[in-house]
């Protein structure tokens, strides 16, 4: 069922033959210039790109820039962000809103805080559905498949719960389901596992890997945890103080780190993460 939903921009993308995402941006915040400096990278269809960087290096800033949400944080992006050839930075807000949630899904860092405390779970799905679909109740049809995919209970009682009644792990699965609702090309997951305990973390990582495998959904996987990135990503990019210092296939970067910083990062680990793949 989920597979059969038409993906927006599929035809266009096929025609242009462009890469999925092409980024070349700098970001200034009000009161903090150049939080991100001339960061360039691109992603292909079906690819998982791991974005690594310590806290404050500009990872979330990049994610917000791609989603066009910087302005709400007092930031401004310069440059180009092309999604299947379309420059998102040039899009008017009305059209950008169509991209968010529909072409790009977003999975946040703290799942419990990212759910509206006054809204039951079904309300979240209803609202997310209404954002892009005129039919009010279509979500009820896609939901069972979606819940099964993210391994959430499908009972009506579950959906009648309020967010505060959920565990962090369940909440994160709900957010992944919400991100998948419109079957987007790309999912941006901003440290989706850092709030989770090791076992839950592992479950979520497998879930993301499964999505990528089954649905060909590209994932921009943001983390400061080298191990998770190494486990999931096809390619990795290393962000330091707002600049990309190194990027390439995971095997290359972890196998033969070029930049001093990457080497330092690797040194903090007891075991080369590649060995755990």
């Amino acid at each position: 069922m989920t597979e059969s939903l038409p993906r927006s921009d599929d035809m266009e993308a096929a025609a242009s033959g462009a890469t999925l995402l092409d980024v070349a941006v700098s970001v200034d915040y009000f009161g903090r210039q150049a939080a991100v400096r001339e960061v360039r990278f691109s992603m292909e269809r079906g690819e998982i790109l791991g974005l690594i960087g310590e806290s404050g290096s500009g990872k979330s800033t990049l994610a917000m820039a791609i989603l066009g949400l910087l302005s709400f944080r007092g930031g401004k992006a310069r440059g180009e962000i092309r999604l299947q050839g379309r420059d998102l930075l040039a899009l008017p807000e009305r059209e950008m809103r169509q991209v968010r949630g529909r072409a790009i899904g977003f999975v946040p860092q703290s799942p419990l805080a990212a759910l509206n405390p006054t809204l039951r779970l079904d309300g979240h799905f209803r609202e997310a559905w209404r954002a892009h679909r005129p039919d009010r109740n279509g979500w009820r049809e896609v939901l069972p498949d979606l819940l099964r995919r993210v391994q959430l209970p499908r009972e009506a009682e579950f959906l009648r719960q309020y967010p505060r009644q959920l565990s962090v792990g369940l909440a994160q699965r709900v957010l992944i389901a919400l991100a998948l609702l419109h079957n987007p090309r790309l999912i941006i997951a901003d440290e989706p596992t850092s709030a989770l305990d090791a076992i839950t973390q592992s479950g979520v990582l497998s879930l993301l890997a499964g999505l990528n495998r089954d649905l060909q959904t590209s994932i921009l996987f943001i983390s400061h945890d080298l191990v998770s990135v190494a486990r999931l990503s096809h390619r990795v990019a290393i962000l330091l103080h707002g600049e990309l210092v190194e990027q390439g296939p995971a095997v290359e970067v972890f196998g033969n780190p070029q930049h001093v910083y990457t080497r330092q990062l690797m040194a903090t680990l007891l075991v080369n993460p590649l060995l755990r793949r």
Partner: protein
Amino acid sequence: MKQLRIAAMGVLVAIFSASLAADLLSPHPYGEQYRDAVNAAPSRAFPMGTDDMGRDRLSRLLHACRVSLLLAPAAALVATTLAGLLGGAAGYLGGTADRVFLRLSDLFLSLPWLFLFLSVRSLLPLNAAPAVSAVATFLLLGVLGWAGPARVARACACGLRQSDFVMQAKANGRSPMRLLLVEIVRNLRPVLAAQFWLAIPVFVLAEANLGLLGLGVSEPLPSLGGLLRELENYQAVVSQPWMVAPAIILIGVTGCLHLVLGWEEIRR
């Protein structure tokens, strides 16, 4: 806690049903002047005595409750709804919208709105029924009363605007209107509810003050505010202590409403 809530519920039901059934329960017409029995003490004929024009206090109290206890919450609802929408929107949108909001609410809080009440009264037809002017008065109180609660709502909305779930909702591509209603205003509800309970006695008293200027509910229709005005005369209160009944009712109703609905809020 539970018993207290049930007791409060009972009090409310009693007061509201008594005021709805005012016509049935009143021993006398609320406007009838028994001119040979002014300022009478409670008796079988006048269970709560009479006022300075010889009108039965009990009948007036029942009708006053009907006027004030139905209209003041209605006005409070209007005010808090406006407050939620305007304050919520300002806090959520920020920037220019917020600055305009702050100016506007400043203006609303500082302008002497009395002139509006004056002109509304003079715009109503002279022979308009007292009930019409009562509704108009409370409606206007509601429409003008948004600024205070809206400030509170805005402050909370400012906090919500930075919250993760609002960001998440934006990342879902929700429309600004739905965002405002579902993410902001919904989460303002506890704050707005508090403002709502605060507004009820405020509006009842505001009506009393308007009445001092002859702008409130017009004679001979009684209102709680109108009856409260009599308490100004403290000597009379000392000699006729049953005059404080309207004040007790007002405090009681506000308190009970708070108990009953406050509990609801916690449970949810």
